[in-house]
């Protein structure tokens, strides 16, 4: 069975020369296939428009190759999209494939919601890359967008080459190293303090938002059960009251739809926003970490140079090493400053956009609820 979903586009395409979106996704058994659609005026591309099928693992491959590229050390690497979470629905889809019963309305709706979420987050990843002056020129990014065959073979080769070494390194020691570094630059000192604090707060807010959304969905489910129970009761009653009960069951069913939509819109706009920025903050911290490492390397190279001068051995080598370390550190500091500044701007814009959209949707759904309820009350009163 296939399920088509059209994307909830969070449009980061601010430059018409390279426009990417994910117009739909297919959910087949236990795989999600994203349609990546590219429109470009850049000469580096072979065609002005592409549409390719990509799986989640392809995105991860792309992310990993970018992380492990030394050249990008001074940039905030857009966080990898999380794996699509289809635990329950996947099982059901599997059963469907083997000719079992059909999916209930609710299961279908949940699946659709999950797809919406995952499309959004995969799309944002690509748009972050396309809107960045350096990433958009990345060779692997281009391959990702235009190679019209399966990327599986390439992925396997890449894994063997890099083995995820850098990733593990970065994850393990960042907090300690960042806090331990003696910072002379006011800007980075402030950023460090801000990111460390903000990181824990946003993680917490994400968790709380997730719980809130889940409760909201539970309430919607309860409306569904109440509707069913009312219908059962209606089956046995005398005529006039039967109609009344059936009408009530209908009201609850409609309420369920609205509540469900409210909950999932809140999830898309608020919870997903917070989730995304939790990851993005981590990416920013990773940058600070890389810079801190570079600083530590520079300080070590200074010590090594002093030692060499004392001993009178390998001085030229040590001097060269120290020069390179300094260069690297300066480069990271310079691009890091730019990245962190634009990060703040980007964050503010995203929050603003999502908060406005969420609020407008909440208002819209609440108004729908009110008119639905008032209409039903009129009918029930007149009966």
């Amino acid at each position, binding site marked *: 069975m296939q399920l088509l979903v059209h994307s909830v586009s969070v449009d980061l395409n601010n430059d018409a020369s390279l426009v990417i979106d994910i117009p739909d996704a297919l959910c087949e058994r236990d795989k999600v296939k994203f349609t990546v659609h590219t429109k470009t005026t850049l000469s580096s591309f072979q065609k002005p428009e592409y549409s390719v099928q990509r799986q989640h693992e392809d995105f991860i491959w792309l992310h990993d190759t970018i992380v492990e590229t030394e050249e990008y050390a001074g940039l905030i690497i857009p966080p990898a999209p999380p794996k699509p979470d289809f635990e329950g629905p996947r099982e059901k889809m599997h059963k469907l494939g083997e000719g079992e019963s059909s999916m209930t309305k609710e299961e279908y709706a949940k699946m659709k919601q999950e797809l919406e979420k995952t499309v959004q987050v995969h799309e944002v990843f690509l748009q972050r890359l396309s809107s960045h002056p350096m990433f958009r020129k990345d060779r692997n990014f281009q391959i990702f967008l235009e190679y019209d065959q399966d990327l599986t073979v390439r992925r396997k080769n890449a894994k063997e080459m890099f083995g995820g070494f850098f990733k593990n390194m970065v994850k393990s020691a960042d907090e300690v190293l960042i806090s331990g570094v003696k910072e002379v630059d006011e800007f980075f000192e402030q950023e460090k303090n801000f990111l460390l604090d903000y990181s824990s707060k946003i993680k917490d807010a994400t968790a*709380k938002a997730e719980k*809130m959304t889940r409760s909201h969905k539970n309430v919607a489910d309860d*409306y569904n059960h109440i509707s069913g129970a009312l219908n059962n009761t209606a089956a046995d009653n005398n005529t006039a*009251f039967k109609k009344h009960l059936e009408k009530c069951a209908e009201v609850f069913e409609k309420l369920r739809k609205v509540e469900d939509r409210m909950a999932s819109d809140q999830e898309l706009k608020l919870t997903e926003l917070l989730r995304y920025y939790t990851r993005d903050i981590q990416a920013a911290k990773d940058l600070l970490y890389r810079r801190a490492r570079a600083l530590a390397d520079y300080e070590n190279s200074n010590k090594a140079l002093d030692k060499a001068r004392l001993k009178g051995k390998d001085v030229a080598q040590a001097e060269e090493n120290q020069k390179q370390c300094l260069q690297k550190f300066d480069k990271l500091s310079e691009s890091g400053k730019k990245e962190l500044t634009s990060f703040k701007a980007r964050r503010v814009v995203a929050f*603003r956009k999502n*908060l406005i959209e969420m609020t407008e949707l909440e208002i819209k759904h*609440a108004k729908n609820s009110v008119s639905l309820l008032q209409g039903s009350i009129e009918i029930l009163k007149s009966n």
Partner: protein
Amino acid sequence: SNDAENTAAHHRNTLQFNTYSHRKQLFSVCVTLSEATEEVSLDSPERQPILSDGPSPVITPVTPVMISSRADVFDRSPDQDEDEEENRDTFDIQISVSDPEKVGDGMNAYMVYKVLTKTSLSIFSRDEVCVKRRFSDFLGLHSKLASKYMHMGYIVPPAPEKSIVGMTKVKVGKEDLSSVEFVEKRRSALERYLLRTVKHPALLKDPDVLQFLESSELPRAVSTQALSGAGILRMVNKAADAVNKMTIKMNESDAWFEEKQQQFENLDVQLRKLHASVESLVCHRKELSVNTASFAKSAAMLGNSEDHTALSRALSQLAEVEEKIDQLHQDQACADFYLISELLGDYVRLITAVKGVFDQRMKTWAKCQDAQVMLQRKREAEAKLQHANKPDKLQQAKDEIREWEGKVQQGERDFEQISKNIRREVGRFEKDRVKDFRVVIIKYLESLVHTQQQMIKYWEAFLPEAKAIA
């Protein structure tokens, strides 16, 4: 302003629902019933059970005088038939149970409630009476009413359930939210219980009911083996034995009873399912409230941490909106509970009482059958003695035959009477059920409308704040 109240009450069948914003305040649910219900036929055979002592040895009626001076009520005896009109005469009574007060300390402590009755009915000695009652008093009242009326086929509203866990918390003196909620839940249940009881035309005039509502001192009900849902089920099971011995009279009348009994079985199952779904809703709504409050705090912390000024302010505003929404969820959860969940719970218990009444009829029939069997035996015995030349014994046999003939007649009369009563009671019950649900559903939907309208207000106020992020 008694007139104004009466008129308002007369044309209003409302379930008012006042909420206070303060979390610890109690919610008051005042049920006002203003429509008249059918009058009970007060022919003499029936009057007997109402005025007799009945199996309630603990109470000595305080003012027997009260009954005779209200003779005018008992003179009225409108006739009953199956499809009666509702008598829109002066049925007007408001009862509220309020101001729970803890008396005493430790495990001997108990709650006392104020019971306020406002009425223009003449059977009451005053327009407004206020008395203090404790939970066991209510159970005692129900016990008496059940023993007097159930065997006649009247559906006696069940008393609220006992709760050892709930009461222990209160006794031990925990002032926390769950004890407060428990007391409020009980107060509301007691109020609904009294209102249902007086809504029953026969029970309204019962001297025990009147005494309960008016008498300032009430002798302590010692053995309150109240006929709770569980109690009635036990009774039902005993009656089931009688059913097994019954030879079924297959006529139209019995078909009606069979059909109705099946309907109530089905309704029982359906209502329990519905009740369970609503209870789940209440639970999840409360969880939503807690999680919303928790998120609000977290959003506020995030706002504090945010270094971009405008965004920081917007996040703080978001936190405030979510806090207000939390309060909305709490209020809605209360509506979920008091309007729908508790009502459904009441009806589940009421249906148990209805089933009990059907089984009483079975018991009555069985008794009737037994009497007939006995009569037959006595006749056979007499026939044998005809040829035995024992004049004394023959006379005794003849006397016994007469005795049992009388019992058979009485049994048949009782059976007819209980069948008639049940038909009427069921008719009344169905009407009330439909009316209650109609009213409550509308009230509930209106509460949902209110919640959504508030949400719109809050989000519309937040929107400019979100747009102001620059």
